[in-house]
């Protein structure tokens, strides 16, 4: 009887995992649609520069490339972290996600550096529609990265304190999904915003 109840509880847990994983995917799709709007507005408005320099004069390709590589690497380390979570290895989880966290932070720092340089030179989101769209698209991604870091930070603290329990592993799974998602969005931003400026 006891084992039967235990079995029921376990399948109850598994079902909940399944549902929440699915729901999270649906959420990611809604987020993607939001980004789609931002991409579309950027595409429509990007030539409305009203005298500010063309993007290929503004952007530093090495910087964008560095950002891309950092984010891709962080996705990879997050993947390693998930593998460690599968093995139940708490130290490795903390290490790999710690590295992911630092890489994310670096990415954010570079992005902010780029923004502050633009603003310093007098090209702000108030300058024209094109720059409004640029700052909004890239900034929204940055905001997502920030919330991802917040989430990762708290998750790591809880893992450190409570150990790798099932709900925390579930959270890590969703988090790494989110992180990969942001990576994919960034690849689009890199291509459409940065690379195409030089095309």
């Amino acid at each position: 009887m006891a084992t039967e109840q235990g079995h029921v509880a376990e399948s109850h847990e598994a079902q909940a995992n399944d549902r929440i994983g699915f729901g999270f995917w649906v959420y990611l799709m809604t987020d993607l649609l939001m980004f789609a709007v931002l991409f579309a507005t950027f595409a429509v408005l990007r030539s409305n520069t009203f005298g500010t320099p063309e993007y290929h004069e503004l952007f530093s390709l090495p910087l964008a490339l560095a950002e891309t590589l950092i984010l891709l690497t962080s996705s990879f380390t997050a993947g390693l972290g998930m593998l460690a979570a599968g093995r139940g290895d708490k130290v490795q989880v903390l290490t790999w996600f710690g590295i992911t966290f630092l890489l994310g932070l670096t990415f954010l720092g570079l992005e902010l550096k780029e923004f502050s340089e633009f603003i310093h030179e007098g090209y702000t989101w108030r300058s024209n529609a094109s720059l409004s769209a640029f700052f909004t698209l890239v900034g929204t991604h940055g905001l997502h990265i920030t919330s991802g870091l917040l989430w990762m930070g708290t998750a790591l603290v809880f893992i450190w304190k409570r150990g790798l329990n099932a709900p925390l592993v579930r959270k890590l799974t969703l988090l790494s999904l989110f992180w990969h998602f942001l990576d994919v969005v960034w690849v689009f931003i890199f291509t459409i915003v940065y690379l195409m400026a030089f095309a």
Partner: protein
Amino acid sequence: MKEFLLGKLDAHALPHEWFTIGGTAAFILGAALIIGLITWKKRWTWLWKEWLTSVDPKKIGIMYFIVAGFMLLRGGLDAIMIWLQQALSSGDSYGYLSADHFQQIFTAHGNIMVFFVAMAFIFGLINYIVPLQIGARDLASPFLNTLGFWLYVAGVVMVNMFFALGGEYAATGWLAIAPLSGTQFSPGVGVDYWIWSLQVSGIGTTLGAINFIMTILKMRAPGMTLWKMPLFTWGSLCSMIMAVTVFPLLTATLFLLFFDRYLGMHFFTTDLGGNAMMYTNLIWMWGHPEVYILMLPAFGVFSEIVSTFSRKRMAYYKSNILGMLGVSAFALSVWLHHFFTMGAGANVNAFFGVMTMIIAIPTSVLVFTWIATMYKGRIRFGVPMLWFLGFIGVFSVGGLAGVLLAVPPADFQLHNSLFLVAHFHTMVIGGVLFGIFAGINYWFPKIAGFRLNERIGRYAFWCWIVGFMMSFIPMYTLGIMGATRRLDHYDASTGWQPFYVLMLIGGIIIMIGVALQLVQIIASIMQKQRLRDTTGDPWDGRTLEWATSSPPPPYNLAVIPEITSRDAFFEFKQRGGLPRAKYEAIHMPKNTAAGIYISAFAFLASFAFVWHITWLIVVGIVGIIVCFIARTFNDDLEYTLSAAEVEKIEKNRLKDVRSEPRQGRDDDEDMGLWEFIKIVVTWALGLIGIRRRSHGN
């Protein structure tokens, strides 16, 4: 310092006009009355524990109904104010409202009716009925559900907040078309209130929709395949999928408009390369599907009602579903028909015209399936069925007008005229609101445990129908006469005034209908013993929600049966009842106040955004984050009812259910209007009498 503390807020924002003072007073009075009543009855703990923090979709559904009901009255009052102004304001008379105030009223009317009435009623119905219909105990994420509800409440507060602080709402029309909604033409806080009331409740809608998709797709009773799912659930699923697709667009668009206003960006401004036409595109990419998001669950309601009240299985069930899916798919690709007149060119216009016409095809299929379902049935004309027939009459007029509007050259003449306004009112009132009324009359016994008074329900229905014709036939006519929408004044020479007066009279008759609906509910409560539904199945229902008692226990069905066919419950009844099975332990979610806290902080943040109070923005956002973390890292979310406990609850419950079903309900037994008035008058006289006696002492 003052600017730091209060942002743009100052004494000038306090109410100083008759309508803001009136509105504020009304809200304060109402709130004081409710708070006083609860305190007097010592019901605070009960309210907090049993209702406000509840994660039971049934209770959340009821709360949606209550808030939406109040908002219906508020939006209805707006409608009467609009019509009164238009009936008066001809020639030398300029009515009783300034142009600006008039424009705020119709903007608020549109927002309230779509977001805070129709959407909320639909969410209420889905919350209550869908889990029951699919044999689920709760939702995939009970927390997201309460969060969605409380975000909606925050939106409701936002949309009424301007009465007390700011004194102005958006004067831009319900979609705040740019560049009119930019700071250049709308410098005040009105549009900001508009943005944030929609933003907050819209995000709630997205979360709710994700939740229902998870629930419907992942939590159906064993054996209930998609092709065995009840049609209301199907309609809800289609609607929620559309919501998930288009509400992110609304969220993004509102943010862009907000950035324009708050950060001085140039997405939709006239200067520095802003593109206002992009706003029109984006907002309608959401706006058009939104109508269908409301409509599809209503279609589902009608399918359930037609089938039950004809005592027949739904005919052409799959065609009906394909129809709903077709509507959902095509609804996403017709948005441009809202602005043929912007000058996109013949090919683009004609393409979107064709797409729009295509939607008429699945919609007609739905009508055919209803006809086939009634064929060789035995139709009871209960109030829900009356609303269905009313819906067909009104909706087809609106639909025909809609196809006419889909023809671009015709649209060039009809667009932005009262013809268009009449068209979408016949669609949304006839389709959505009548669907909601039908649904409430149909499921009320399940929700309350007693059914609604039929007689007064019929009176209300007829008032609605007659009032509706009185107001909307003249409105179509005015459109053909060349009257544009949203006019606060017109020349006497146009000869429009008699039609506006007719509209006002129609509106008053509709108001009487609304009053009768309230009377219907009160009279039913008075006669609750006689109207009690002891069987849980007052209409000889066909779907699973009728398999449990009225009202159902928190866990819906004690034992979830294996489903083998459509109309699952009807089949079970044919075979002699639900299969008996051993009770098992049930996991139930614990109540939580996290949704309330998060919404409260979201409200603070959006209020701070409206008034540019930076520190409060920070407080709001940090508050949201902290609450989220506290909630998501809390693992103690469920409690378990043991099999023995379930058995005990069920035994008590079954005692009632097993008692003899009432025989042959006779409509004439329901209280009539006269009887109701007599009782109320006697009661009122009694009150005075008691006071006299106490004076005598």
